């Protein structure tokens, strides 16, 4: 019965509509990029697992996308539940998307208070244009948030630059942060997921023996 389970860590993407969350998700999923935001290509996609090796440990990073709910409504609070990590995404060519990070941060600390939080400035491929958000501003933001932000990254989903490095680093940070916590959790009485694996007919037989 004792199968080795690779610890699974739920990581959610947060940020304004159009900053590239689904592009990050797609890079994570199959390392592709589509120029026009073609909602259809993520239709039906929910979350994706990928395994990373961190030293002698393995970790399964489970990345979740919002499903576009933030476009006109808010993301459901249940999206945040059980998250171990959250990536705050903004676009380097869109200052407004950076300024609304504080709102997304508030949601994360409210609904997923134990999550480690990371910042990702996407669209680093500006081709000569000046970014609207400077490194100093990002630093200042992190300082204001005291020690809430674990790390910051810059990525380009168009070229793929920095994306893999970011997920690798996040895996490493989560393994270190959770080492002791995961051991503690194993002791607690845990809730469970329901699935078809629990076949009632097997249990029925078991209970009918007890009479």
């Amino acid at each position: 019965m004792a199968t080795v389970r690779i610890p699974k860590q739920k990581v959610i993407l947060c940020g304004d509509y159009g900053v590239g969350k689904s592009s990050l998700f797609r890079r994570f999923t199959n390392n592709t990029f589509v120029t026009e935001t073609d909602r259809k290509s993520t239709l039906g996609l929910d979350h994706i697992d990928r395994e990373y090796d961190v030293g002698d440990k393995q970790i399964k990073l489970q990345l979740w996308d919002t499903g576009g709910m933030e476009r006109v409504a808010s993301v459901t609070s249940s999206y945040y539940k059980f998250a171990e990590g959250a990536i705050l995404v903004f676009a380097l060519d869109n200052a407004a998307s950076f300024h609304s990070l504080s709102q997304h941060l508030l949601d994360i600390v409210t609904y997923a208070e134990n999550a480690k939080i990371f910042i990702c400035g996407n669209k680093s491929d500006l081709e000569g244009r000046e970014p609207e958000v400077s490194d100093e501003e990002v630093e200042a933001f992190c300082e204001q948030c005291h020690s809430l932000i674990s790390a910051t990254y810059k990525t380009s989903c168009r070229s793929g630059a920095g994306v893999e490095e970011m997920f690798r680093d996040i895996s490493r940070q989560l393994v270190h942060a959770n080492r002791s916590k995961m051991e503690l959790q194993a002791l607690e009485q845990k809730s469970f997921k329901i699935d078809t694996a629990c076949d009632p007919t097997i249990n029925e037989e078991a209970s009918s023996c007890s009479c």
Partner: protein
Amino acid sequence: MNEEYDAIVLGTGLKECILSGMLSVSGKKVLHIDRNKYYGGESASITPLEELFQRYGLEPPGERFGRGRDWNVDLIPKFLMANGQLVKLLIHTGVTRYLEFKSIEGSYVYKGGKIAKVPVDQKEALASDLMGMFEKRRFRNFLIYVQDFREDDPKTWKDFDPTKANMQGLYDKFGLDKNTQDFTGHALALFRDDEYLNEPAVNTIRRIKLYSDSLARYGKSPYLYPMYGLGELPQGFARLSAIYGGTYMLDKPIDEIVLGEGGKVVGVRSGEEVAKCKQVYCDPSYVVEKVRKRGKVIRCICILDHPVASTKDGLSTQIIIPQKQVGRKSDIYVSLVSSTHQVAAKGWFVGMVSTTVETENPEVEIKPGLDLLEPIAQKFVTISDYLEPIDDGSQSQIFISESYDATTHFETTCLDVLNIFKRGTGETFDFSKIKHELGDEEQ
């Protein structure tokens, strides 16, 4: 919003969210709107606790109940039957991946002012203090009959046609007394009143089987409860809908449901904007002129700092008070959840008492339930109308759900949803249309 949709869904209560998810999965273009700022409508779990106090017009509680945001208080208390329709819907739609559950620790029934564990198998029947020695034997024989019963095999019917003969007839066949009939019908088959006695016995047999099959799945009790409260359920289905392309709008007032030729719906108006659609699915609160009242339900949320007496200090409990025990026509339901489900601050419990209103003074009606929970630190009482649509929606293409009833589980909720889906699409929902390879599944 100014686009054309196959269906517009109004309200994000559980029923509407399941429908929205089912429609999106079937390939329909769906717009889902709620006038509130939050998901869940009537089936939301309210957080933080201050919000609940505000909702009932009370002063904020201060530090008394611990940290406000540790609370997620359900407005409508219900449990999931482990082998019931909702669990099947959750599994088939994959929504189960968003949720985690705990078993409810105990299922009890009220008799003569005290509570006793609901006996469900032969062993428990013989150990139960609900019956005398000879009655126990008769009840045991009855349980064996139900357990061996197969609808498709008349040999197991034992000279009794349960599709024609009524339930009273089956009780009489086994010689069960009124008292045993009472807890069988109300605590095992979960009927709300005694009308089932005159209906074909097969209905009751099915329900007792649902109870015992549910119990067989995770032990302890047949009931499950989601971590962080019932409000997680509508949100899970809303996410399913969004993942399949559904568009969500919250905090959006609905000013008019626009009708066209022959009274058929053509769109929904909010301020100056009109979204066109072929169909509308909504809860009764969005179409006041198209629903009628069919009674009232009283629900009382109670905050306690202790478990219910004589439940072995269970952190979650369900108690059914059969109507006859307290001289009523409908049962009273009592449920208890606690900090172990992430719905209350550490050391606190959320109790609920609910029933169908029968008199002018409903708060007196639920007293037997409240007495079981005393001492109660804080009470929140709601009396709401039970509304149902005046037509089936085929003419107007407006499909309206019924209000949530006083029952303690989601079986009637799911029946209503599947029924509405069939009326709206002409199809029985095809579970196989949902891709199973979405993300991954538990290994």
